[in-house]
């Protein structure tokens, strides 16, 4: 018997908007409302609104919180002043990625982690295990608040022009801005919203300007409706997971379960920038330092098809090009790029073949379709 799929508090809103629904990580989520291509282009050219309430929220508080997180996550948590967030990774002792996530400092000794929906159980179990082994564990508290919070992402070049109208007023916590549109990349503020408090962060997963809003479950519907209402005159469209995937693939953001998993390290994934080797001991440090010294066995690369072809897809084989093809690796994400109108993707190959301009071939239905390794990101905003 199939366990029932979970639904966010915005499910009724998705139905009203005529969303096509699919299963994702145990949740029933919109894959599209009108068309993936249309929604993708709306985000690139105007604005798009995503339900990301399925994602997890973990609160870590107490005088020992900063040190616990700094010994558990790869990035340097000490850089987080109140109201600042950072992209970071949670690794196992072998340096394998348990999850990629955002960590925010909400207030003195108060941190919020936003984690992937498919990893909530695994992350919370691992974090509790690490906390149990933390010498100062009496000075830190961990709370899985995933079932109490919802979240939405509003992304696109026009968003900064209407965000203040949605959420007027000055910050009541976090970065002390006079209005939401003053938040810079990675900054977060507490804002009043109809008698409640919401968190607005200048972050996103699309490569566009925009914000992510976290609010209690009983407030998130009003947040969604307000954004839709105000955003309508600015071209805002509701967008599903289909567009979320094409957008992040174009800018080469990893997706857990594809570019990242427990058998892949941040170095192999090309995320060494988010590993603060000099900060001291953290989970996976020794294994990652060893790998940094001796070299990685595989490298995450971006590629672009060089001719008309069917779209490259996850699990397709990457071959060398030329007369006697050699198997190089596997595609971990692939799609037809709505912005570039060509097939694009990410995959892992041996380091010798990871250089941009290396010609390769993607095996698509038995044929070796020509492609080329390109630098990341594949899509860059035109200046």
């Amino acid at each position, binding site marked *: 018997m199939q366990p029932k799929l979970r639904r966010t508090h915005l499910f009724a809103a998705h139905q009203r908007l005529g969303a*096509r629904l699919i299963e994702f990580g145990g949740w029933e989520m919109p*894959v*599209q409302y009108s*068309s*993936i*291509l249309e929604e993708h282009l709306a985000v690139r050219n105007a604005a798009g609104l995503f339900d990301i309430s399925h994602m997890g929220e973990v609160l870590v508080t107490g005088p020992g919180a900063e040190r616990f997180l700094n010994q558990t996550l790869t990035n340097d948590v000490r850089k987080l002043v109140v109201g600042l967030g950072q992209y970071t990774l949670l690794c196992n002792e072998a340096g394998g990625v348990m999850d990629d996530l955002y960590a925010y400092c909400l207030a003195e000794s108060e941190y919020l982690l936003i984690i992937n929906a498919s990893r909530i159980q695994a992350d919370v179990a691992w974090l509790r295990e690490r906390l149990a082994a933390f010498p100062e564990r009496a000075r830190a508290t961990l709370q899985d608040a995933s079932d109490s919070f919802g979240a939405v992402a509003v992304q696109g070049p026009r968003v900064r022009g209407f965000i203040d109208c949605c959420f007027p007023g000055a910050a009541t916590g976090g970065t002390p801005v006079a209005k939401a549109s003053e938040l810079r990349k990675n900054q977060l503020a507490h804002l009043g919203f109809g008698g409640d408090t919401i968190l607005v962060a200048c972050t996103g997963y699309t490569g566009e300007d925009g914000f992510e809003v976290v609010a209690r479950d009983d407030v998130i519907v009003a947040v969604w409706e307000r954004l839709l209402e105000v955003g309508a005159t600015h071209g805002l469209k509701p967008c599903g997971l*289909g567009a979320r995937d*094409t957008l992040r693939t174009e800018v080469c953001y990893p997706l857990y379960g594809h570019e990242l998993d427990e058998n892949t390290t941040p170095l192999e994934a090309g995320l060494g920038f988010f590993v603060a080797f000099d900060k001291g001991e953290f989970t996976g440090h020794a294994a990652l330092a060893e790998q940094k010294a001796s070299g990685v066995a595989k490298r995450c690369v971006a590629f672009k098809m060089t001719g*008309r*072809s*069917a*779209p490259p897809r996850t699990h397709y084989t990457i071959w060398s090009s030329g007369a006697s093809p050699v198997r190089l690796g596997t595609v971990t994400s692939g*799609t*037809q790029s*709505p912005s570039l109108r060509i097939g694009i993707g990410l995959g892992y190959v041996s380091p010798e073949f990871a250089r941009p301009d290396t010609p390769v071939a993607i095996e698509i*239905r038995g044929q070796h379709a020509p492609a080329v390794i390109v630098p990341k990101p594949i899509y860059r905003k035109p200046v």
Partner: protein
Amino acid sequence: MTNVPADLRYTKSHEWVRVLGDTATIGITDHAQHELTDVVYVELPAAGRQLKAGESCAVVESVKTASDIYSPLTGEVLEVNQAVVANPALVNSDPYADGWFLKLRVANAAELQTLLQADQYAAQIG
């Protein structure tokens, strides 16, 4: 409300057929394009290829999935629609006209009896 033109014939696998003399034009239905969503790639057979009824003859790929297209009839491929190869979105915008896939010479007129009428196909898709 999906469009099912009365003057066409259909298959269970969502292909449509327009017969003129001994030439059959083939494409996929409005229901099929709606299920597939944004078509980004179409692969068609070469002219001259001999197809058997039920044989896989083309591939349609959307952003999320790939779908095989099955020939409703036996016959030789006379012509394929290059416009839909160059602009796959035509399958979504105009599945019964500009989004046609191929024309074949009907080898066995009796096979036409096995195709569904519009009301039968409409009943099948609900």
